[in-house]
């Protein structure tokens, strides 16, 4: 029996980042699509993709580690207090989302408030890079060996 066949694909330039769940305000069509001559034509266009009115958001990944800086202040909302109690030790945004049964995007809004209020600290993940960190890969391999 012969297996079905596929054709491999080539790397593509990354798509413009778009928040998946926020309603987007309508915008004029891109001038690139309307025949702009080059990147220098329209510098303000760079800024039109942000500022959709939903406020600034911390760059939070599913595996950003969140740690409470202090216990819940009296002014904390029940949701904020719940996060602060859970984050006595580091927890990823994904784990917080799972334990609190909140969608990831809701979790990031909540955490952005807590970061702004300096009630939690966010420890950014280590991401894949063009120049990979061999010692990082080796550390992960050694850790997996011990499983």
């Amino acid at each position, binding site marked *: 029996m012969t297996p079905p066949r*596929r054709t491999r694909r080539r790397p593509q330039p990354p798509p413009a980042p778009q928040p*998946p769940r926020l309603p987007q305000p309508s915008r004029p069509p891109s001038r690139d699509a309307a025949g702009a001559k080059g990147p220098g034509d329209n510098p303000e266009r760079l800024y039109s993709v942000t500022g959709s009115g939903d406020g600034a958001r911390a760059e939070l990944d599913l595996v950003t580690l969140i740690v409470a800086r202090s216990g819940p202040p009296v002014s904390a909302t029940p949701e904020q207090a719940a996060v602060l109690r859970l984050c006595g030790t580091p927890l*990823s945004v*994904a784990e917080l989302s799972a334990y609190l*049964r909140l969608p990831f995007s809701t979790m990031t809004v909540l955490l952005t408030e807590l970061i702004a209020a300096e009630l939690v600290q966010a420890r950014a993940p280590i991401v894949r890079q063009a120049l990979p960190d061999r010692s990082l890969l080796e*550390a992960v391999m050694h850790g997996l060996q011990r499983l």
Partner: protein
Amino acid sequence: MDFNGSDTLPGPRTEDHLPHTAQAAVKIVIVGGFGVGKTTMVGSVSEIRPLTTEETMTQAGIGVDDDYGSESKTATTVAMDFGRISITEKLVLYLFGTPGQERFWFLWNGLFEGALGAVVLVDTRRLEVSFDVMGRLEEGGVPFVVAVNSFPDAPRYPVEELRTALDLSPDIPIIDCDVRRRASSKDVLMTLMGFLHSLAMSGALT
């Protein structure tokens, strides 16, 4: 949910707490069609009971979805199962098992961003369901290995026949596994890490 009852607040078991020294996390994604064993693999190697994170999207956010021919926005919930492996006192690895349907790729873009690499789990009875997944990884420049989850009644193909069918370059590892077994799932992850390491050594990782 009720956030006021601190006594009943869900959270990690005491033994599941990460040490305060945990400074950063890395992630690996496990992709494949529905029922191919992604969650089983996560569970077999995770130090915590696998958890589920969700995201709610509207149809408009998902993109093309005219199944119902409706103009109204319908909320769709996408769930991802994940597990965790402590690598060192400072470093934590998370494993995510993603939904395989094309309509959820929107969400995937955020997930794959920064992942060290991916495991494509395939079932030789339904090889074609993984084709789009692999293409998506290739387009995104995410390095991956292919793990063939051995189901008893699945057809067995020689590795080179699979490589040809999947149109994979000779350096991409293809391995058999039984994801119910911790040792086998660990072998798959080690194979991925070895592959990433070889890419790093050759400077080919972009």
